[in-house]
């Protein structure tokens, strides 16, 4: 009965079968996209806009509320919104960008802004600034972060800055004072103190996580010496020696001061900080409410302090747009889309509804209307307190910066596991950068 299995038929079948995977591996994703009626904008005419953002169902509920408020004012503009988690969101946008059919209004990330702008996928908002899109409540620097090659292609909804969270409850438990500021070495010493005290008390706690696994800490160290990671022209502005020195500086703390990599893998996708095994962590300041939520009800407050100082008086920190809104270059209703963008960013209603969900509102009118919970207020105060250290934002990240950031993080993990040396790590990173920059 199994004669039919013999010979060429099955051979061909097997080959085709395996061939299909070569293909199907390259398809997937895709589909969907914008489908709007062909019409020119007229305030009285019914218009349908598509809109996308990344986030979870909590944020989706907020967007729904804001859109309902928008429709009270503009009943003729129907907004069809959809959302996905961050990585999937970009996988879907990438295929849409390649095939045409980006949504009319979309949430944009700094890491993708340059790529989308330079490929002509985003509408230049210049004609709408100051009329449909109110720029009065937005600072010049804020509007400036959405400018690529002289074109304004994104408006920030909110901002964040690099900061350092500490956990006062855990510190009290092991009897160590909160970090009092200082340089990177002071910070390492402080972490060692915490780890040692925890070990003596028999508590599963470490002073922090290895900050050299994050490109942002490298960035602010470089900026302290007056250098952004990349130049205006997208050329790397640091050498292999700089990077080696940076990773080398973490070698001591990886040996028993910071949380072991194995433990971090176990708690992934959470971090050591929000699983209460690290007493401090350097990260974006808008992570605060997420951290509090993950830590659970026993934890009611967090410390938020400046990152360690590299160079006294240097302007190493900067305000980054945590999200922007952009409009597709192919939209058939640019005025309606701009009206929606303005409402999502500037309207008091949006500030009221979003609060700090997307970061601290970039627009003053939105910020004034926002009722900030204690942690959001703390973040807003923090961003005000670091004003002396805030410098000009770096150029819009190079195309593929997201890939580099991820590679950096992954190399940090391997350094944590001890599976590669610092020299190999530097090699790998520069190889990756070479590919990405010549993509």
């Amino acid at each position, binding site marked *: *009965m*199994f*004669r*039919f*299995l*013999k010979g060429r*038929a*099955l*051979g*061909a*079948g*097997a*080959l*085709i*079968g*395996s*061939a*299909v*995977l*070569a*293909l*199907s*591996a*390259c*398809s*997937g*994703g895709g589909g969907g996209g914008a489908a709007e009626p062909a019409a020119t904008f007229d305030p009285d005419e019914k218009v349908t806009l598509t809109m996308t953002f990344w986030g979870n169902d909590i944020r989706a509920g907020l967007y729904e509320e804001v859109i309902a408020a928008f429709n009270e004012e503009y009943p003729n503009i129907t907004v069809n919104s959809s959302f996905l988690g961050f*990585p*999937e969101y*970009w*996988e879907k946008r*990438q*295929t849409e*960008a*390649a095939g045409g059919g980006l949504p009319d209004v979309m949430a944009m990330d700094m890491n993708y802004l340059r*790529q989308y702008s330079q*490929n002509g996928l985003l509408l230049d908002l210049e004609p709408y600034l100051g009329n449909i899109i109110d720029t009065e409540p937005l600072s010049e620097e804020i509007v400036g972060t959405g400018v690529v090659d002289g074109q304004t292609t994104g408006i920030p909804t909110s901002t964040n800055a690099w900061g350092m969270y500490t956990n006062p409850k855990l510190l009290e438990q092991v009897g160590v004072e909160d970090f009092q500021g200082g340089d990177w070495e002071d910070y390492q010493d402080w972490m060692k103190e915490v780890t040692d005290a925890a070990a003596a008390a028999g508590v599963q706690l470490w002073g922090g996580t290895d900050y050299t696994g994050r490109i942002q800490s490298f960035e602010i160290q470089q900026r302290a010496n007056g250098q952004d990671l990349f130049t205006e022209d997208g050329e790397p502005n640091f050498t292999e020696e700089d990077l080696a020195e940076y990773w080398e500086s973490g070698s001591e703390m990886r040996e028993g001061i910071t949380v072991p*990599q*194995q433990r971090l*893998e*176990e*708690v*992934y*996708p959470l971090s050591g900080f929000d699983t209460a095994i690290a007493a401090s962590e350097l990260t974006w300041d808008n992570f605060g409410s997420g951290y509090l939520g993950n830590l659970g009800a026993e934890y009611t407050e967090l410390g938020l302090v400046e990152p360690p100082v590299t160079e006294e008086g240097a302007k190493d920190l900067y305000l980054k747009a945590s999200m922007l809104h952009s409009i597709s270059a192919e939209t058939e209703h640019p005025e309606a889309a701009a009206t929606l963008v303005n409402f999502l960013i500037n309207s008091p209603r949006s500030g009221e509804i979003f609060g700090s969900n997307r970061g601290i509102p970039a627009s003053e009118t939105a910020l004034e209307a926002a009722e900030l919970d204690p942690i959001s207020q703390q973040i807003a105060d923090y961003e005000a307190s670091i004003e002396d250290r805030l410098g000009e934002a770096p150029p819009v990240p190079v*195309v*593929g910066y*997201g*890939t580099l950031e*991820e590679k950096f993080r*992954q190399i940090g*993990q*391997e350094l944590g*596991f001890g*599976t*590669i040396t610092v020299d190999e790590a530097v090699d*790998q990173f520069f*190889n990756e950068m070479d*590919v*990405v920059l010549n*993509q």
Partner: protein
Amino acid sequence: MSTTTTTAVADAGAGRPSPRRSADSNRPGLRARTVRESVTGYTFLIPWLIGFFGLTLGPMIYSLYLSFTRYNLFSDPRWTGLDNYVRMFTEDPQFMQSAQITLIYVLVGTPIKLAAALGVAMLLNYRDRGSAFFRSAFYAPSLIGASVSVAIVWRAMFANDGPVDNGLSLFGINLGGWVGNVALVLPMMILLAVWQFGAPMVIFLAGLKQVPKELYEAAEMDGAGAFRRFRAVTIPMLSPVIFFNLLLELIGAFQVFASAYIISNGSGGPAGMTNFITVYLYKRGFADVQMGYAAAMAWVLLIVVAIIAAILFRTQRSWVHYAGDSR
């Protein structure tokens, strides 16, 4: 992905014209009718042919072209010759790790899965009573196995303080969560694959039913024990089925994607231990938009699978016995 494969295998078999026709066409009076018949036959094949050329062969050739280029989806592909392939084997430790764990997954997981399938099939073949129920019960996991929900359940089961962790600690084994453990996550993935042994099991069962009872009786009379009967009767009689299952499962295992993607939250972690080739090339293609590089990886994967299939076909002569064969 796996569905596409099996269909393609079946279609390729069905698509072959009947050999009877060539004999008929030698008779002159029948030629016109034969031509008409072929036209009709091919007309019925058109939907499949369109699918094959438009959706399989065309994109495949394009993907082969892309594998020699740099292509970021936004600008036109740029010819770079063998750069992608060179990079893969000399400059990308992530690829090497990915290839390694994929091979381990395939080469360890598949035999275990087939052994489990054969073992259960033999148990079911032993007694008839209630076998329909058990057959369905054992087959059920492979029906739902590839789905998203099972991967999510699996992740929860093997998490720190999950049912598996707690169950093992009853016996004094404290492994903690498997999901985040670099050493245990691959065994966990293999277990998930093994658990879905239903499809090969059903095929084994059908094969076992075909083995003539007389052979066992004769062997028993010659004084062969249970193991000897298994080795000398069951295995050879079943070898075509084993071959078929082995081929299908190997190809299927190379394509593992959904479970790994979901269990690792799309990261391929911890430390790249679930970053199977398909997951890695998906990330390179769609997250990093290095489509050319992803296409090159897909082709390397295809070639490796083809080589393994070719080796299997080569060795088939020495261990696969077809009924009625004089060999």
